Every structure is written in structure tokens, then in C-alpha cells.
């Protein structure tokens, strides 16, 4: 076992960890605000990837427009999905949510397949790769990580310091009290859901710069995002960030020293063990 491989594994793990964290944060915000689990996360990550991809295809000078467009489209798509579907799922049994959002997944995935073929694609941005001895660092991954970190910090700052963030926290804590303060909880639901979908799209657009993707490729990422959410304690964005880094590193270690195929299995094993030992999540306090 070489030191270089170890270092490379950790670096790769942290890179992807930020993306897992971002996708997890999208899920956890939605859950925190309206107690809905976004089972369509995988398809939405891929949709975000395609948005980034097509933006780059038509404007292949910089990676930034793809990010901006995916954020914008994600937000509008979130509002649409909320108004048409999710609004009606609030307070319904979990099974209803599960079926409806799996239905949405199927609609999205097959539409992507029909429109854009099953061929795997990736955003062909020409980022240089630097090598230090046997360790290589691709600047695309550095760029993607920085974007993910910036987005994470931005979301946390909005949560902590802005009126909008305070209102979201109020609704997460106590909807009735928030209503009594004069908050329009329905509007907060719309915006909270859209914010979650925006982060999901962004995770997809960033992923597409470092990994190939295809219409049905979202599931592994969604599964990881679910693990991240559970480890990071439901409804807690900061916890998501740390859990993302942990799961990213685990993912990378399993890939380097065993086989990448087993990475989700190991991630889920960790989740199950966490459930059994600390039902409140890794970061959560005991009730």
C-alpha cells in the first residue's frame, strides 16, 4: 500500500464528497421544511447534468454559464414540480409520496432517454491535470469542489444571516408559530422545495464536468445522497456537508482498495449501522 495511493484516494474522496454533500443538502432542506422525501433526486441530478451539458455545448467558452443556467433552470423546475405535484403530497402517507415521485423519476428519465439517447456524455471542458510525483490532481475536480464549497457556504450563510433563511428555519422548527408571526408557510414551502431542487441540479451540473452521465445514471448518486442525509441528521445542512465528506472518502477508499461496485453497499452498511447505533444520526444530539 503506497502512500501516494492513500493520498490520492483521500483527495478524490473529498472531491466527490462535496458533491454528495451538495445533493444531500438539497434533499435535507426539502425534508426539513415540508417533511417530504424527494425520491426523484436521481433524475433531477441527471437533468441538472444535461442542462450543464447543453449550455456548454452551445456556449463552449467557460464552465460558469452551465452552472448559472442549471441553477436558474433548477429553481424554476422546482417551482413547477412543487405547484403541480408536491403541493398535493404534503401530509399524505409516505407511500403516496414514494409512488408519485418514482412516477416522476420514470417520466423524467424516459423523457431524457427519448430526447437525448442513452449514450453517456460528459462536459468536454479542457481542464489541465497537474502531477506531483504519482499523485495527480485534475483542475476540473478542484474547480468542481470549489464550486460545491462556495454553494454550500452560500446556502449556510443565507440560512444563518438572511431574513429568508430565518423564515425557513422558523418553518422547519414550528409551522404554527411561523404562521402566527405572519409567515405564509405555503410560499416558504414553494421556495424551500425550489432551493432544494436548485442544489440538486447544481450537483448534477458539477458532476457532469468530472464524470460521464446518462439518463438513468442518477440512482447511485441519489443513493449516496440519502446516506449523507441520514448520517448528517435529517434536516441539518451542516451535518450534510460533513457526512458528504465522510461518505465521499469511504466511496473513494472502497474504489481504490476493493472495487467501486461495492461502494454503495459499504455506504449503506454504514447507514444501517448508524441507524442501529445512533438513530438520531452522526451529528444529532440524543433526544
Amino acid at each position: 500500500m503506497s502512500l501516494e495511493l492513500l493520498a490520492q484516494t483521500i483527495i478524490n474522496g473529498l472531491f466527490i464528497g462535496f458533491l454528495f454533500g451538495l445533493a444531500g443538502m438539497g434533499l435535507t432542506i426539502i425534508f426539513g421544511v415540508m417533511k417530504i422525501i424527494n425520491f426523484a433526486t436521481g433524475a433531477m441530478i441527471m437533468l441538472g447534468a444535461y442542462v450543464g451539458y447543453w449550455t456548454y455545448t452551445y456556449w463552449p467558452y467557460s464552465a460558469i454559464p452551465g452552472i448559472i443556467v442549471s441553477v436558474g433552470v433548477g429553481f424554476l423546475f422546482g417551482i413547477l414540480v412543487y405547484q403541480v405535484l408536491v403541493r398535493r403530497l404534503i401530509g399524505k402517507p409516505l407511500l403516496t409520496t414514494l409512488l408519485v415521485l418514482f412516477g416522476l423519476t420514470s417520466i423524467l428519465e424516459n423523457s431524457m432517454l427519448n430526447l437525448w439517447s442513452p449514450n453517456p456524455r460528459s462536459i468536454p471542458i479542457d481542464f489541465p491535470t497537474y502531477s506531483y510525483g504519482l499523485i495527480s490532481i485534475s483542475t476540473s475536480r478542484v474547480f468542481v469542489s470549489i464550486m460545491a464549497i462556495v454553494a454550500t457556504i452560500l446556502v449556510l450563510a443565507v440560512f444563518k444571516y438572511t431574513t429568508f433563511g430565518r423564515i425557513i428555519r422558523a418553518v422547519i422548527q414550528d409551522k404554527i408559530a411561523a404562521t402566527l408571526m405572519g409567515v405564509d408557510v405555503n410560499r416558504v414551502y414553494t421556495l424551500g422545495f425550489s432551493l432544494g431542487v436548485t442544489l440538486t441540479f447544481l450537483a448534477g451540473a458539477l458532476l457532469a464536468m468530472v464524470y460521464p452521465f446518462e439518463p438513468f445514471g442518477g440512482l447511485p448518486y441519489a443513493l449516496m445522497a440519502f446516506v449523507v442525509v441520514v448520517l448528517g441528521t435529517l434536516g441539518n445542512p451542516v451535518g450534510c456537508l460533513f457526512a458528504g465528506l465522510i461518505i465521499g472518502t469511504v466511496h473513494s477508499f472502497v474504489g481504490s482498495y476493493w472495487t467501486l461496485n461495492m461502494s454503495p453497499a459499504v455506504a449503506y452498511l454504514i447507514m444501517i449501522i448508524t441507524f442501529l447505533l445512533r438513530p438520531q444520526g452522526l451529528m444529532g444530539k440524543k433526544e
Partner: protein
Amino acid sequence: MALLEVKDLNTGYGPIQALWSVSLNVENKGITTLLGANGSGKSTFLHCIVGLQKLWSGDIIFDNKSITSIKANKRTDQGISLVPEGRRIFFNMSVKENLVMGAYTPNARGKMDDSFEQVYAMFPVLKERTGQRAGTLSGGEQQMLAIARALMSRPKLLMLDEVSTGLSPVLTTLVMDTLGKIGETLPILVVEQAVEKALEISHTAYVLENGKIVMQGKSDELKRDENLRKAYMGI
């Protein structure tokens, strides 16, 4: 002219009726109190006024205008503020953030600095603890925060649902005296278990029993009423 006029209100949960033809007025001055045993429908009544509970029938007139069809969150901006049962402060927010949430409505936002001064003058302990997480306050401090938060919205009518629950007798007296003081300038509707004290600070009282108003009148008269004393003060 009454500030709040509730006419012939009926409501319930599913098929079960909880309030039967309840009519109640809150005058433009002083404190009105609503008494009643556990489960008699006091909270349900307050929820109707703030819009958290739908009416089956009846009308709620506030400030000369029917508010029956106005959404709950809009009623706050109309000038109705409720300190809900169980306080419902935002535990994970600081004292200050809780108060800022209280001043959320457009009407209140512009007067926030002035409101802060007022509530800090009224509850100096909140000023000392402005940065503290609300969940770590003592029970009495939490209750003061809940009242202060409700005042931040600059209400025309303040309503309080069992604010003395869980407080020591000393704190109960303190909170009730504070209410008495607030009531000198702001009309208040209190729902209370501390019957004796509530009748002392209020001018008018209603008694709810199994969802029906069974008694109403001047507080000092009700205070002397044999039946009421037997039922609620154990005397």
C-alpha cells in the same frame, strides 16, 4: 363599539363539534378573560380567531371588519397577535432572532427598533440574554419571550393562551401583573387556569363549558359567584 366581535361561532374536529354558538366581545380597552376547564374549547376558540381553525359557521368581526375569510398569516398584519399554548418559541434561535420573527409583518417591520426598546424595557432579562439560544432559557424567561415576541408585531389585540401554565406562583403573579400593565394601553383577551388572578386583572369574563358559554359578566361580580368559585377555585 367592541374591538373584537365573535358571533354565533360553531366549529369542531371531523364530525365532533367543539364549540356551540359561541358569542364573545372584546372591548377596546382593558382585559377580557375566558375561563373554562380542560377541554372546554378555549384554545379552539382562539385558533378560530387567528385563523388556524376553520369555522363551521359564524362570523368574526375585528376592527369593524369581518376577518372570517382572511388567511391566518394575514390576520397577524391586521393586528391580532396570539401567545399560543405551550409558548412555541423558536428553540434553536437566539432571543433576538425570536423577537425579529415577531416583527415579521410589513406593519411591524418598520417599527422594529422602537418595538425592541419597548419590550426590552418591559422585560430587561431578555435584553441581558439577547444572544442566548431561546431553548436554554428558563420556563419563566421563555414565557416572557413568547409575550415579547407577540408584542413585536404591534398588535391592536393581544391574546394569550394559558401563559401561567408551568410557572411558579411567584412568576405567575409577576406575569399577570405585567399583563395588567400592558392591558392599560392594549386590549387583551386572556385564557387562564389561574382563575383568581385572571379575574383580578380583567374587567369582563366569560366561562366556557363543554364548548358553550355558560356564564358571562363583570369580573368582580363573577369572582363572588358561588358556582364559579366552587367549580374553578375549589372554594
